[in-house]
C-alpha cells in the first residue's frame, strides 16, 4: 500500500513540519512505497533530502503548470495521484496549508479527514487505529477510521523528524495536473513579510508577560530583557484580549505555538490554553507572585515575587555581568 505525503517547501528544502509528516508517513507505509507530492522545483538538494527520508517517488508539479498556493487545485492533484498510485493513505503536515488542502481533499472525495494525528496504524480488518489531538494537544482522542483512503494530517509538534535508516532510490516524476473549472478561483498572491526581527515561533528565548504585567505600559522591562537575551516578548490571551499587546504576540492555543530553548513566563498564571502554546519549550522558568499558580506545575524553576521588581533587577544583573565580562 502506497502512502502519499504532501511536502511543503521552505526555500528549496522540505519544511520542518513536512519532515515530521514524512517520518509519520514512512512508519505508516511500513516498508511499502512512500511517495510525495510537491509543488515547485525539485532541485538536487531537495531530491537528496527526500531520498534521505525514504521517499521512493516524488510527483512534482512545476511552477510553469501551477504557480502559487491554490488549495483546491493542490487537493485535486492529490486526489488524482492517490487514484493513480492506488494509495491507501494521504498524509500532510497539520499546518495552515496542510490542513486546508486536506480539508478540500476530504470534501472532494467525500471521505473523513483526521486532523492532527500523533499516531496511526492499520488494524487487521483494514481499518485504521489512530490517536489525534483535540484542544490543541491538551487531550488525545483515540479513534477508528474506516475508509478506502485514509486522509490524515500530522500534529506539527509531536512526531520528531527522523531520516530513514537507509536512503531510498528516488524517482522524480514531472506531474501534469488535470484541473477542473474553478480550481484556481482561490489562489494566494504572496507579498514579502516584514523583514528582520526574530519571530515568536522560532525564537530561541521568549520572555512571556501575562495579566501580572498590569497594563500596556508594563512591558518595557520585559522588552529590555528579551532584547538582552536575543529573544522576543510573548504574551497570554488576556493581554491580547485586553488590547495591551497585538495578537501576533500571543502564545497559546489561539495564538502561536513556541519551541524556544527558554520560556521565561512572567505574571502568567498558566491557563491550560496557554500551556498548549508553550509546552514544547525546552526549559520553562516562571516568575509569579502566587506560589500556587498552575504555571509552576509546568516550570522547571520559579521565582516567587512581583515581576515588576524581579525583572528590572535581573536586567541590571545581566548588564553588570556583561560589563564585567
Amino acid at each position, binding site marked *: 500500500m502506497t502512502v502519499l505525503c504532501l511536502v511543503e517547501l521552505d526555500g528549496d528544502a522540505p519544511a520542518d513540519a513536512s519532515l515530521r509528516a514524512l517520518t509519520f508517513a514512512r512508519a505508516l507505509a511500513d516498508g511499502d512505497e512512500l511517495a510525495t507530492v510537491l509543488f515547485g522545483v525539485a532541485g538536487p538538494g531537495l531530491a537528496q533530502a527526500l531520498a534521505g527520508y525514504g521517499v521512493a517517488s516524488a510527483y512534482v508539479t512545476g511552477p510553469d503548470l501551477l504557480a502559487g498556493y491554490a488549495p483546491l487545485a493542490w487537493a485535486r492533484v492529490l486526489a488524482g495521484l492517490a487514484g493513480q498510485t492506488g494509495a491507501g493513505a494521504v498524509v500532510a503536515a497539520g499546518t495552515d496549508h496542510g490542513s486546508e488542502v486536506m480539508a478540500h481533499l476530504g470534501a472532494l472525495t467525500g471521505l*473523513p479527514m483526521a486532523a492532527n494525528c500523533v499516531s496511526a496504524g492499520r488494524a487487521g480488518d483494514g481499518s485504521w487505529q489512530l490517536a489525534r489531538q483535540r484542544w490543541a494537544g491538551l487531550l488525545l482522542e483515540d479513534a*477508528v477510521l474506516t475508509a478506502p483512503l485514509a486522509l490524515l494530517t500530522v500534529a506539527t509538534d509531536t512526531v520528531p523528524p527522523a531520516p530513514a535508516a537507509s536512503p531510498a532510490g528516488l524517482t522524480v516524476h514531472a506531474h501534469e495536473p488535470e484541473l477542473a473549472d474553478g480550481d484556481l478561483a482561490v489562489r494566494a498572491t504572496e507579498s*514579502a513579510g516584514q523583514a528582520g526581527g526574530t519571530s515568536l515561533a522560532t525564537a530561541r528565548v521568549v520572555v512571556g508577560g501575562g495579566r501580572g504585567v498590569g497594563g500596556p505600559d508594563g512591558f518595557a522591562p520585559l522588552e529590555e530583557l528579551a532584547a538582552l537575551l536575543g529573544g522576543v516578548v510573548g504574551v497570554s490571551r488576556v493581554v491580547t484580549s485586553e*488590547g495591551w499587546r497585538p495578537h501576533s504576540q500571543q502564545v497559546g492555543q489561539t495564538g502561536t505555538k513556541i519551541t524556544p530553548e527558554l520560556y521565561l513566563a512572567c505574571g502568567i498564571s498558566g491557563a491550560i490554553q496557554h500551556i498548549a502554546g508553550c509546552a514544547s519549550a525546552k526549559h520553562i522558568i516562571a516568575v509569579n507572585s502566587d506560589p500556587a499558580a498552575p504555571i509552576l506545575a509546568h516550570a522547571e524553576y520559579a521565582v516567587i*515575587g512581583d515581576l515588576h521588581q524581579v525583572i528590572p533587577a*535581573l536586567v541590571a544583573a545581566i548588564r553588570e555581568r556583561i560589563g564585567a565580562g
Partner: protein
Amino acid sequence: MEILVCVKRVPMVGGQIVVTADGQDVDTRMSGFAMSPHEECAVEEGIRLTERLGGGVSVLTLGPPAAAEQLREALALGAGRAVLLATDGREWGPIATAGAIGAEARRRADTGQGYDLLLLGNEAADTGDYQVGVRVAHALGWPVVTGIKGIETDGHTVRARREYRGQQELFEFGMPAVITVKEGINLPRYPSLPGRLRAKRAEIEQHEPQWQPEELRKQGLRVPEAERKRATVLGNGPDAVPALVGVLAELGVLP
C-alpha cells in the same frame, strides 16, 4: 450584505482538562461554556462588515438546546437573527455538521434572502477538526479560504489575507463565499446593556437536523502523559536574581 456566522459552544477550561469517567467527554460539571474563541472574532467581523456595508448578521449554532446561550451572546453583540440546529447532545462529526449548515444556507436562499458570506472559526477549540468551513463551501459550490486575519470587501469581491510562515498571503475572489477566521482579526466588543436586553427577548429559529454516523469514530478521550514538574523555587523577589542568573548561564542563554 447578508452574513451567516457559525459558532460552537465549547467548555470553558481553566487550569486543567478533566475527562469524564467513561472517557467519552470533557467533564464540564465544574466549568461554564463559551463561544469557541475564533468564532467570537467571526461574530465581531460579521457585525463590522454589516456596519460598513449594510445588511444583517445571522448567527447559527449546532448543539444542544443550551447552546442558545451562545446565540444570545452573539445577538447581544449585534447579530439580528439566530438559528439553533438542535441536537440531542451527541457529538456531531465534521461531515454531518457541514451538511446541516449547508442545508440552512440553502433553506435561506429558497426564501429569496440567501447569504452572501458565511463566516466560521478556523477550527473549534474542542474537537479541532479543521474542515467544517471547507466542507460547507463544497456543499454550496462556493469559494473558501481558511485561517484569515483580515477581510476587505465592497460587497461583491472579497480580499482576504493571512500570514503564513512570515509571508503575507492575499486571496481575492467573488461572493458568495465562505471564510474561516482566526483570533486576532479584530478585538471583539463587549455587549451593551440594550443589546443584552434585546438578546434576552429575541426569538430563536430552531431546526432539528438528523444525526449521522461518520467513518471516523471516537473511541475515547485521554489526557496525554506529560511530565508534571514541581518547579525548583530559586527564591523570593529580587533576592532570587543571583540564583536566576546562575540558571540562565547554565542554560546557555546569557549573552
